[in-house]
């Protein structure tokens, strides 16, 4: 991580050459919600990353059986440790290991960073519209953390759909970021609960909600949508129906595994 700092905050990690598998050591676990934890890893040979990229994680059982999954990087490029935020799926194969079994001091095999399409760079001066469904917030959080680190003041809006209040990942940190007065507004939508005193939306994303949250098309915002496939496609189609240029919308679909594949 020190190396990335030396290279400077605008350095773009190499995108040529095969990626090798490397090891991270779990340094800290932060429980975000009952089902979601963030894993903070020390990765000695980490070359740096861009906000929005992911890593592939590979687990090996003692009989040689391997399982691989992709997880978005939650930490910003300049953060000291590599963070992955993982939702534990009851019928998952990898997530119950990462959230539940993996202990501080254990090594985790990973490769990355991966992705050149679904990335946000701090120099981007377009308004930023982020739409997240559940754990789809992870790569978007990396973008917001990066935005804060580089002290960008481009107008930014996050529309974040979660099941219940208790399921809202990064809730406190998002409150702080949204109160920083640097042009970020956070909107929440809950789909399965209407808590007393809740000031956010209490329904699934629809056209009326997007009309209130999204900028007029003339502002030409950069749009990033991430979450389960049906969520991403519904949100994307709504924006296109509102007149947004499809090319301005970038999407990343998570499978039922909570990550990509």
């Amino acid at each position, binding site marked *: 991580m020190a190396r990335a700092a030396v290279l400077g905050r605008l350095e773009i990690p190499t995108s040529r050459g095969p990626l090798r598998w490397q090891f991270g050591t779990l340094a800290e676990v932060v429980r975000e919600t009952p089902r979601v934890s963030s894993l903070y890893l020390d990765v000695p040979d980490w070359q740096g990353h861009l906000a929005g990229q*992911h890593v592939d994680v590979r687990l090996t059982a003692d009989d040689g059986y391997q399982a691989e999954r*992709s997880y978005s990087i939650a930490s910003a490029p300049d953060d000291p440790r590599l963070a992955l935020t993982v939702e534990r799926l009851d019928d998952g194969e990898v997530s119950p290991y990462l959230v539940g079994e993996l202990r501080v001091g254990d090594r985790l095999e990973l490769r990355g960073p991966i992705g*050149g*399409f679904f990335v946000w760079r701090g120099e981007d001066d377009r308004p930023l519209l982020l739409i997240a469904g559940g754990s789809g917030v992870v790569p978007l959080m990396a973008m917001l953390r990066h935005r804060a680190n580089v002290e960008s003041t481009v107008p930014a809006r996050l529309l974040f759909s979660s099941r219940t209040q208790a399921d809202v990942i990064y809730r406190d940190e998002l409150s702080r970021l949204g109160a920083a007065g640097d042009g970020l507004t956070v909107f929440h939508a809950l789909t399965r609960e209407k808590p007393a005193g809740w000031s956010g939306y209490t329904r699934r994303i629809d056209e009326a909600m997007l009309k209130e949250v999204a900028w007029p098309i003339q502002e030409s915002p950069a749009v990033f949508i991430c979450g*389960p*496939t*049906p969520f991403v496609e519904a949100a994307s189609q709504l924006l296109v129906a509102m007149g947004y240029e499809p090319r301005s919308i970038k999407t990343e679909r998570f499978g039922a595994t909570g990550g990509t594949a």
Partner: protein
Amino acid sequence: MNSESHNHARLAATTQVEEARLDGNAIGGLLREIFAVEMTAAVGTCAFCGAVNEVGRVQVYVRAPGTVVRCPECEQVLMKIVRGGGRYWVDMTGVRCLEFSEA
């Protein structure tokens, strides 16, 4: 079988398959293994309908005997990737042209 239960089953199945469908971001690692360069921002032209899209926008089916990549517009097969027994088999006949940057 009556058409109502059939339609209901069809909707449920569509949801399951929809959930199983990802996009080109999901094969970023696999493509980097094969091309030795970051590919999700590479731009491909569909050999069937001519649609031009970044790899990050294409439809990807990963729960299959191999990886199947389809055009988001016409749904024809852009690429098939099979990996096994120490080898890769890559069919790119559905991609007329692939553009990606040097840097």
